[in-house]
């Protein structure tokens, strides 16, 4: 059981990475990766919202939708729960922690449209995970997203001062780097 959970954690963080393997969350991956500080802020905000959304939607599905035979409403329920959670989180941060709001607040509305959040909620249900597997997958996936986003931002900061040909400057070289990162991460498949 423990070995299975460790495998799931490594898989969700490195091998089955949301960005590089499943091509999810590419909008914040390209848009908020120019500076390390903003990438870190976005990463932390994504981890916070995905963990909260994953736990709430899993509970809601098994405690409300299944007993009422309303499983077909999972998608619309999860979208509304994620949107509500983002509002709640933003309100909570405004009131309780201005410093945290200053660093994360601007990224919270962007997370509502981040497809990684919805993907985690849907995979938890469709794969039939129990609570332990759900928790590991719900924590592992955003950690993988944050890790890749931070590494990518470090590379992009270096690219700003690198001698890149004019036609490759900006997004073209960033996309090439993302492709190379995807290949590098796929090379880790042998560790499992």
């Amino acid at each position, binding site marked *: 059981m423990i070995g299975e959970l460790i495998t799931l954690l490594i898989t969700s963080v490195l091998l089955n990475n949301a960005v590089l393997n499943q091509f999810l969350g590419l909008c914040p991956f390209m848009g908020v990766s120019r500076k390390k500080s903003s990438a870190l802020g976005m990463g932390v905000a994504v981890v916070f919202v995905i963990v909260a959304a994953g736990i709430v939607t899993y509970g809601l599905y098994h405690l*409300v939708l299944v007993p009422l035979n309303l499983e077909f409403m999972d998608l619309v329920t999860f979208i509304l729960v994620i949107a509500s959670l983002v509002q709640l989180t933003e309100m909570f941060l405004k009131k309780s922690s201005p410093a945290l709001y200053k660093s994360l607040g601007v*990224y919270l*509305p962007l997370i509502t449209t981040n497809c990684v959040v919805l993907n985690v909620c849907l995979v938890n249900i469709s794969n039939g995970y129990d609570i332990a597997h759900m928790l590991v997958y719900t924590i592992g996936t955003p950690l993988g997203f944050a890790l890749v986003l931070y590494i990518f931002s470090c590379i992009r900061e270096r690219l700003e001062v690198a001698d890149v040909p004019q036609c490759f400057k900006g997004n073209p070289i960033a996309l090439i780097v993302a492709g190379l990162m995807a290949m590098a991460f796929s090379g880790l498949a042998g560790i499992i």
Partner: protein
Amino acid sequence: MDFAQLFLAILFFGSLVGIYIFLFLKNKKTPKPEGCENLKADCEGCKDIYCPNHPTKEES
């Protein structure tokens, strides 16, 4: 699908929408902390022109 289940589905959906609207309005009314009035994302814009952080939204 029988009538009771349809009614439950509509009721459940309505309550979720109600919760979202309540939280949205409550969040809008909550004042931002000092120094956070004009926070902007460090985003130069992707192709999603409907995103609230897209630079064209700030111009209009």
